[in-house]
């Protein structure tokens, strides 16, 4: 690579990255199109089946330091909802005639904020007095937390826990015991004493045992059940333990996930040993939690993405009218597609139909779903190729023939739209911008290659084209990529720099290696006559020997 190429590349990348990092670090523009505050839309949906009067209880989240719950809505057919307080938490009780099946949906939005960093464990002296309410509620032995049981007492002696004036030490010792000496087995015992006896337990068993041990060591402790919220995934049920220390609750994971700082994706639902949902004279079925990270509306996002700096604010694309923004969003994704094309072409060496056709296809697939889009493509191209075959017999001139094909392709798309409508997938074709002309050229090229170089070659190239289209599809589908390219158009400079580097790459392509593999294999295996002659032997001797013996 010549120095001029290297410098051109470096300058582009550097300028692009400098602008980008200034906007991210200096102006604090958001890297992802989601709310940095982390607002989640959470929904609990379940069916209740009962025989008569009864109730269904479900743990509801409540406001606390690290979570704010708002916009609660509940719907149920014919049941009345009352909310009871249970310690720091709340329980929703749906009651009424539960005969038959009732559907309950409860949804809310929650903003999860990080509780001020990690709480350091206090050293003495610290708040020695524990309020009586806390002691009464969270230090007494219960059936679930048998803190007074003999094996528990024995274990405390055996562990040689630090004296009562060092609660931090006690906590550490007990958590270390649970974490390292009790195995986590997902279907292990859920009972505290069983868990202690077998030295293994489910996360539920381990957290129960931890609460039991803490209470036995005179530390008020409680069990928390919550949800781990994750994008595009059903939330997982998570249990952890909170222990009262230095005048506040200190969260600890029984499986070693965290100690002191509750992760930001945890939503607490219930404080106490009970289940999240409990039926009285009724059974809950189809219980499902679902969570969705809330995206910002265009206006909210625009407010966030237009910086205070007047120069950069005037350069922000978010100031443009919305239709222009929509067009530019697609346009700014194209450099990424072009980058993918360049990579495929110059590092891999795949032959496709047309240079940019694959990314146009990838872009078109974005409008449909991947599988449906590919199926549609296959149908259109197949019909097109068959028509092309038929046209061959008519000997039409090129441009009218192409135009005829164009009409066939359009009729195919119209027909598919009708079929799609018949199957009730109305949205499927909404806004399809399948580049019809591109499809027509694809049909023509496919037919030509098929005639000239055989079906195999045409099919191979078709597969390559689709492979590149499918590979670029996630790029086009990604809202993050779209947000990045639209919010930070200077990234196009980075892409340009990378393109310069790819353009200056004079090494082999993957397909070169395949093509010349014969040369790359070790020379002994090549049945070569001429190369193996000693340097001194004359050419005449070579000719004679080759035609004579043919060694």
């Amino acid at each position, binding site marked *: 690579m010549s120095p001029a190429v290297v410098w051109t590349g470096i300058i582009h990348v550097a300028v692009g990255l400098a602008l980008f990092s200034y906007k991210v670090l200096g102006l604090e523009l958001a890297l992802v199109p989601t709310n940095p505050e982390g607002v989640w839309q959470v929904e609990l949906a379940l069916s209740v089946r009962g025989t008569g009067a009864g109730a269904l209880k479900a743990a509801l989240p409540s406001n606390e330091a690290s979570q704010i719950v708002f916009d609660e809505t509940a719907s149920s057919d014919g049941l009345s909802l009352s909310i009871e307080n249970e310690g720091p938490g709340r329980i929703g009780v749906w009651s009424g005639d539960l005969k038959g099946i009732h559907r309950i949906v409860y949804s809310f939005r929650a903003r999860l904020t990080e509780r001020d960093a990690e709480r350091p464990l206090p050293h003495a002296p610290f708040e020695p007095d524990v309020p009586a309410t806390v002691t009464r509620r969270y230090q007494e032995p219960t059936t679930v937390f048998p803190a007074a049981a003999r094996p528990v007492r024995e274990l405390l002696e055996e562990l040689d826990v630090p004296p009562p004036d060092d609660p931090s030490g006690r906590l550490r010792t007990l958590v270390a015991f649970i974490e390292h000496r009790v195995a986590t087995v997902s279907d292990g015992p859920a009972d505290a004493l069983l868990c202690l006896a077998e030295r293994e337990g489910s996360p539920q068993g381990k957290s129960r045992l931890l609460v039991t041990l803490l209470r036995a060591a005179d530390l008020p402790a409680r069990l928390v059940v919550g949800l781990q919220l994750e994008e595009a995934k059903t939330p997982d049920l998570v249990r952890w333990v909170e222990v009262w220390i230095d005048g506040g609750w200190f969260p600890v994971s029984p499986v070693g996930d965290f100690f002191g700082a509750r992760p930001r994706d945890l939503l607490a639902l219930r404080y106490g040993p009970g289940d999240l949902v409990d039926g009285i004279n009724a059974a809950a079925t189809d219980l499902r939690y679902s969570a969705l990270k809330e995206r910002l509306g265009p206006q909210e996002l625009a407010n966030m993405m237009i910086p205070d700096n007047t120069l950069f604010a005037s350069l922000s694309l978010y100031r443009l009218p919305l239709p222009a923004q929509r067009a530019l969003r697609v346009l700014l994704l194209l450099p990424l597609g072009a980058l993918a094309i360049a990579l495929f072409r110059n590092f891999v060496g795949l032959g496709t139909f047309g240079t940019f056709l694959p990314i146009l296809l990838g872009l078109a697939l974005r409008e449909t779903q991947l599988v449906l889009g590919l199926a549609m493509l296959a149908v259109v191209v197949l019909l097109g190729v068959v028509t092309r075959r038929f046209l061959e017999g008519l000997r039409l*001139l090129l441009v009218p023939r192409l135009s005829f094909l164009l009409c066939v392709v359009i009729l195919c798309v119209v027909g598919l739209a009708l079929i799609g409508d018949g199957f009730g997938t109305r949205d499927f074709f909404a806004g399809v911008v399948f580049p019809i002309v591109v499809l027509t050229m694809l049909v023509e090229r496919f037919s030509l290659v098929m005639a000239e170089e055989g079906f195999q070659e045409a099919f191979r190239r078709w597969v390559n084209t689709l492979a590149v289209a499918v590979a670029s599809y996630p790029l086009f589908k990604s809202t993050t990529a779209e947000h990045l390219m639209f919010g930070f158009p200077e990234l196009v400079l980075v892409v340009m720099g990378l393109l310069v580097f790819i353009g200056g790459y004079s090494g*082999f392509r993957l397909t070169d290696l395949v093509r010349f593999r*014969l040369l790359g294999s070790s020379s002994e295996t090549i049945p070569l006559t001429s190369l193996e002659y000693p340097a001194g032997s004359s050419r005449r001797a070579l000719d004679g020997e*080759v035609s004579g013996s043919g060694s």
Partner: protein
Amino acid sequence: MIYRRLRQMGVLGINRRNIDLTSRHNPRRLYPLVDNKLRTKAMCIGAGIPVPRLLAKAEHHFELEELMGRVDGLDDFVMKPARGAMGNGIVVITGRTERLFSRTGSRRMSRGDLQFHAASILSGLYALGGNDDMAMVEERLVVHPEFRSIAYDGVPDVRVIVYRGYPVMAMARLPTKASSGRANLHQGAIGVGLDMATGTMQSAVRHNAPLEIHPDTGERLIGRRLPNFERVLQIAVAAAEITGLGYLGADVVVDARHGPVILELNARPGLAIQLCNRAGLLPRLATVDRIADMPRDATGRLTMVKELADLWTRD
């Protein structure tokens, strides 16, 4: 692994060819000279380089009737697009009855088929970039007697790579049954690496597999000598000289009557020639780079290549 071995051998890859050779030594403005076979032909005739005789040409659709009129008086000929690539769109007519033309590979076509083919050529169906094109009709070349037993149903040609005036590598391309008489390697023709001093066949490859015997005729290839090889190199070098291209592939056919003639020239010659010769191009190009600045006429350069050939073959 294989990457490093290919590098050691000095194999030229596509990226490197595009960056270091075609874009450096072949100015874009010279491309039309070689991309249009009619211009190549005119240029060669002007410089006294032998080419197949042009019998007819058509640039516009109204000229097609005239073209077909010429064709009617011919028994055998070749119709091809002036701007075609990779042998696409070439029809070789070997004989005819009253209504039907017979093509290579014992296919037949009617007069109407042939006229339609000419019209397709004019519409740019086979042209690079799909632009309008011209159809040309040439005399059909006759396989040299020495080639008859190793060429199946077609005319073999010799591809010579000329770099800065020096022929650096050459291969013969022999049509096979699988390539239906065409001399294109990717369609199954045999590529044979040639010794640059004598034109002796050294190694042969078909579809990436080495072979020593022509699969259709059963004739042994290795050790055979190409007829008139010196003259082949001579006209390749002369053609390169008049185009002004620094890196060029010349396709030469050894005709039974005229001897070697230039069939076409290529400004971005393919790389499979290295496979046929079992050698990379880069060491040879490097040698030429060291000596290219010394003033030598064409004869001097050809003598030089003869001396270098031993060295190259042994590499």
